[in-house]
């Protein structure tokens, strides 16, 4: 009888310890999760801000106005090559 009570008491104590351990693990996990979530949010926020900046600087509207400010002008004409021209002549043909 005493042996049974002793075993049950030991089991109860072990379960209690396990409960405390698990609760503690979950609580630590929760804190960590909260920290990670905040970190993710911060990184996402930073990324979004950087993306907006990048789009602002790479828009054609902005590039064109900056180019004009810097003195670039539209070329009024373009040259086309109407017939094929040789750009290199083989040594055999030159002889």
């Amino acid at each position: 009888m005493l042996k049974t009570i002793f075993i049950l008491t030991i089991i109860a104590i072990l379960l209690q310890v396990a409960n405390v351990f698990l609760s503690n693990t979950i609580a630590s996990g929760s804190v960590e999760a909260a920290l990670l979530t905040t970190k993710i949010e911060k990184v996402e926020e930073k990324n979004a801000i950087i993306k907006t900046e990048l789009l602002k600087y790479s828009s054609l509207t902005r590039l064109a106005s900056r180019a004009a400010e810097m003195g670039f002008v539209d070329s009024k004409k373009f040259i086309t090559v109407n017939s094929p021209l040789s750009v290199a002549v083989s040594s055999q043909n030159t002889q």
Partner: protein
Amino acid sequence: MSDKAVKSRIVLIAFFFAFLYLLIISKLFHWQVVKAEELKTLSESQSSEELITEARRGEILTSDEFPLATNKISYLLYANPKLAEDKEDYAMLLGKTLEMDPATISARLSQDLFWVKIKERLTPDEKVKVDALGLEGVGFQEQTDRYYPEASMAAHLIGFLGKNNDGYDQGFFGLEGFYNSQMQGRDGRLYVVKDALSNPVVNDIREEKTLHGRSIKLTLNRTIQFFAEKRLKEGVLKYEADGGSIIALDTKTGKVLASASVPNFDPTNYYDFLHTSYKDPVVSDLYEPGSTFKVLIMASALDLKKITPETKCASCDGPVQVSGYTIKTWNNKYYPGATMKEVLQHSDNTGMVFIGQKMGAGSTREYLKRFGIGEKTGIDVQGEVTGELRDFWSEIDLATITFGQGISVTPLQLVNAVNAIANGGTLMKPYVVEEITTHDGQKITMKSKAVRRVLKESTSKVMKELMVNNVEAGESQWTKVESYRIAGKTGTAQVPVAGHYDPNVTIASFVGFFPADDPQVTMLVLVNKPKTSIYGSETAAPIFFSVAKDIIQHLEIPPSY
């Protein structure tokens, strides 16, 4: 103690307990029925939390994947007036930092509330500056705003994001309107059980996934769009016009490469513009096409073999009388015995009446139907309209329709019809969205769709040559692009004003495609009520050729000769 006294005590105690029960029952009723919802909410708020994750609205990207509409972060600045000790000092500091009137801030802070809004849409830089002030009781709430990196580029086509009657975001006009349900997505919900210290309990989280909106990739070529808008704005200013439009299609597929209209609006500050400026003139405005319409009539007559390029006009020696009306040429010059090639080259109205009479009303109407006149093109933007193709035409109706008066089309209908001549005779369904990306990254690709065959391929070839001749020898030859065979036709349509045509108020236009031997781009330029010259050859044509030059350079199209 007598029995009576005992009984009365028992009754008294019974009543006392009955009263207690009644009290408990009524209190339970109060808690469990009357206050049930309130207590439930309170308990949930103490032990759990519902986090709403806002769905990101989908982006609108050009063909080079640059967003024309995207989302950006901004901040709402709020304050707790109860924590602001020196409200005047607060107001002065915030006012100076945010360039706001301190009196406005002070008035907000003087309210007997725990939360007041100070300013919306703070930029990240402004947030940093306010943060640096270190004011107590000040906080930020992250917001998402629609952002248009190319400002008003293709504004009519894109539309804008506004608020509906319930205060929620909703897309209006253009693609924001047409694809609203696909782009808006669905907000996600996260139910988190919290521990005593308000940290989330990780193994007890229930989640309704956020469905971010779908992004759409357009057929629009950003460079071509940019040049189209630039040249159009320059042209409208130069010719002192009320406005104008340019629409360019990929000849083979019907993809919209550019769609520009001026005056336009700023989609970010759409509320600063008149409501009438939101609609896209390219799909929502009807106009009488004038001489650009002649190419459709001539192509139809060639296809029916009622004429050949060499057929001589039998009624081109002077003004033509139809049902009591006199029909003249635009410049009052007449070419007796002109061939059909010359009729198109001179944009001769009397020659077109001759063609109309050869075809008859039935065949003409039938061909125009095939060209898509009188029916919507089915393009995927909001607000497309169509003019009516009447069932009954009198003799004068037929005569005027042959030179594009007395019939109305949208710019898109006309360019799409001419595109059928350019691509070998097939009417295509124009489209703007070529790919939709779902929230999980799946890509849905749109394919080009042929509506019907309109002309025989041989007719298309002949018509192309006639249109090339029109550019090489017609009114607009002075402005053509050297070394490239471009097919085109000018138009100078009179505008009906108070029941009659005002000869000095016109819509000048030029429609064409290039390079003529293997067309890649079909384009229409409209100039609305130009003042310096009323003619298409002197206004719309130069704009057309300057954009054509830009496109040729951008697409690296080799010269024709």
